[in-house]
């Protein structure tokens, strides 16, 4: 069979398919990408990670688990401006959601670690967060035969710090919120969004929000200076050390007030906003973004459209909308 005839028959076959079935909607090629399906991971590790996620023995005084601040039922974070650390004092940065965290290119507001494992490491050993150390954690977990068994079944080398981190990271990779209306739209179901929301998306692109909030996680893949078009912190007042962002890490003036661009997925349910929780509502946050990041004066109508669009980014967790 010649290549030409192969191609011909292939074309005819495709044509037949096209006639036979209702036209399958092609995914839209946009700068925003739909969420990938939840990866298939070792169920034993995922289950172990789930238990550890809810395990207060990870903290120094057995008072805090990951789930204490990252509440899956309320958007993967708490609705406090600042969560309480192990010593009962609030931490310095707003708790970001754990949902879709595995899609962020780096972890933490200042992107100081590259992996989820390292993120676990940081939080567990941070004196203001969980305030523990790995020796204690492993010891505390070893005291429970259930963990011993679960670890020796999931990992050849059993219970140790690296495997605790790995189990947690594995679990966190399953914490995705698929099936948001906007994802369905991106996958080709253009009817799912109202005209208003589609306009909102148009404004989102036109005003340049998309310059930073793009990709599969609608953000979370670059750093950006907070205050491109003006000094936000001066306007807000009371500048804090935590406002320095990546500068604390690199000591490079270039990185002053530079933060990881957060993901906008589920943004409607993760108030308050920004690292300093300074925006209580989505409207406030959008205002700040327009003024200090975009340097634009949008009409009230456009802002509302954009907010409507942002609300389509809310996905589902275990089959229920967040």
């Amino acid at each position, binding site marked *: 069979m010649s290549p030409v005839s192969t191609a011909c028959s292939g074309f005819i076959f495709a044509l037949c398919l096209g006639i036979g079935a209702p036209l399958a909607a092609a995914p839209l090629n946009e*700068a*925003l*990408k739909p969420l990938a399906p939840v990866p298939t991971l070792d169920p034993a590790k995922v289950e172990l990670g789930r238990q550890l996620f809810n395990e207060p023995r990870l903290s120094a005084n057995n008072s805090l688990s990951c789930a204490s601040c990252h509440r899956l039922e309320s958007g993967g974070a708490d609705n406090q401006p600042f969560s309480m650390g192990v010593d009962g004092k609030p931490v310095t940065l707003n708790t970001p959601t754990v949902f879709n965290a595995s899609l962020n*290119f780096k972890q933490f507001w200042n992107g100081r670690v*590259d992996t989820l494992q390292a993120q676990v490491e940081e939080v567990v050993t941070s004196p203001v967060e969980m305030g523990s150390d790995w020796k204690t954690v492993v010891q505390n977990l070893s005291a429970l035969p259930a963990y011993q068994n679960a670890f020796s079944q999931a990992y050849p080398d059993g219970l140790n710090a690296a495997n605790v981190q790995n189990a947690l990271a594995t679990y966190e990779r399953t914490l995705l919120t698929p099936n948001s209306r906007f994802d369905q739209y991106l996958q080709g179901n253009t009817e799912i969004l109202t005209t208003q929301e589609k306009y909102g998306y148009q404004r989102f692109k036109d005003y*340049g929000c*998309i*310059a*930073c909030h*793009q*990709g*599969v996680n609608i953000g979370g*893949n*670059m*750093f*950006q*200076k907070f205050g*491109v*078009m003006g000094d936000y912190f001066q306007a807000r007042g009371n500048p804090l050390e935590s406002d320095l962002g990546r500068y604390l890490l690199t000591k490079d003036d*270039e990185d002053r007030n*530079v933060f990881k661009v957060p993901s906008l997925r589920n943004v409607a349910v993760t108030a308050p906003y920004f690292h300093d929780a300074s925006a209580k509502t989505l409207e406030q946050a959008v205002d700040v973004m327009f003024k200090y*990041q*975009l*340097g*634009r*004066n949008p009409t009230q109508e456009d802002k509302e459209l954009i907010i409507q669009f942002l609300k389509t980014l809310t996905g589902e967790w275990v089959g229920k909308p967040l």
Partner: protein
Amino acid sequence: MNSLSRLDRRRASQVLLGLMTLFLASTLVFLYLKSSRDQTATYTQSRDLLRQLQQLNAQWDSEVLKARIAITHNYDPLVTPLTEMTRIGAELESRSAYHSAADLPVWQASLAAYRTAIQEKARLVDQFKSHNAVLRNSLAFLPTAEDDIQAHFNSIDDEGRLQLQSVATDTYDLLLSSLEFAQVTSDERAADILVGLGKLAINQQNLPLEFQAPVDILSNHISLILREQPIVNSLLERIAAVPVAERLDTLTTHLDQDQQAADLVDHQYHRYLLVFSTLLVVLLLYLAVRLLRSFAEINRVNRALQSANETLEQRVERRTQQLKDAQSELLDSARQAGMAEIATNVLHNVGNVLNSVNISADLVSRSLRSSKALGLGKAMQLINAHQGDLGTFLTEDEKGKLLPGYLNQLVDAIAIEQQGMSDELAQLNKSVDHIKDIVSTQQSYAGASTLLEPLEIGALIDDALRMNAGALSRHHVTVVKQYAPVPQMLGDKHRLLLIMVNLISNAKYAMSTLSEQARQITLTVQQTGDDMLKISVKDDGEGIPSENMTRIFTHGFTTRKEGHGFGLHSCALAAVEMHGQLTAHSDGPGHGAVFTLTIPLTLAGSTS
């Protein structure tokens, strides 16, 4: 001494052989391992990883450029290559174990240089993303911002517009030079834009209030472009200057050299292996020759063994034949001995009977010697002397008168005498008949010699007694007979007689040593059960010591000086031949003995 040293030598050679085998085997294994290290595979894999890294790096560069010219707004492709490169880099590092010790630091230094480069590039790319995003945003927005201002110009009346014509033109020029600046960034253009911005700031003061905000926004964005464009450009240059590709090339070169060196070593070991293999082959050939030789030797020895074996077999055969011959000779002599035994037996029995014959003849001759017939002769002499006067003599002579009486007495005596002699001769005849029987029996010994005839057991025992009568009377033996009434039976007369004669004779001998005591033989016959007959001969003689009890029936056993040891033996045999049994019992020396013959009782009327 000699064998000991040979043993030592053998053990030493065995140890030597073992050591040599061990040495050869380990050399082979060593060379094999050295020449077949899985280095090429590792090399290929490492090269593959490096190639992937190079590809990802190129992809990364191209994504940076795409972002630079605003083909895409999606920055994910600028993140994924780094993630992949980090993963592959870690894999590459985990494979560095095979490098030689001297080589490892250089390789690791190259890897470290690569890591530094990639970190630097990642940092620059992150900065590029940030700056490029805002720059692209502002550039994209610039025409719109200008349009906003123009819209305001258009909304005011013609007079005012004429007044502000130069401002509008300046603003438009500023927009154009900013866009040009984005394409060709130079200090002169930057200076132009700065001048333009200054002009705009001055113009702004003369513009109506509604112009303030759009102009602010425009000048802000132009300032941003002015600020960010050189940064983005310099970042791009710096990104291009980061020697990631060069580091990767270094690593590749290093890997190639390493592989070449390894190949060289590999070849060397291959050569060694070849030489060693040749040596082994030579050794094997030598051993094969040795083996063939040993094989021939073994064959030779085998053949010698086989011939020796054959000789041995012949000798064994010969010896077996000799043995067979000896055995048949033995058999013959045994047969002769048997015959001699039979002859002895016969003679013994004949001897016993002859004894009776002798006694009878003796009695007859004694009777003849003392015959009254001699008196007849004397009477006749008297008659002859008185031939003439016979009548006178008989009537008158003293002597003559007695003569007729004497003759009458004589006739009576002679008649008695003749009767006795005729009896004795009849007995003699009987004995001779017995001898005839014995001889004829022995002559037909091999055949079924049992001759059953009706007989009275009591009469038979009496015959036996009579055969021993002389001896018994000589030894003054009293015979007590305790015969139970037994009907006429079928039996082997000769054998029974033989046994009884022997037993009576033995009993008589057994009592020959008794001097004071009365000598008595008790003969008992009784029927036991329905069909058994028991005949016993009891004496009061010397008895049998218990140690002899088991031996008395064996051939050749005797306690008598002139005995030959056949009597009891032949009796026992005869008893067995009659399906009976001969047993002996004694209470010990001095308490006498009882010999009991038990035979089946077959009544005379029951067969025939």
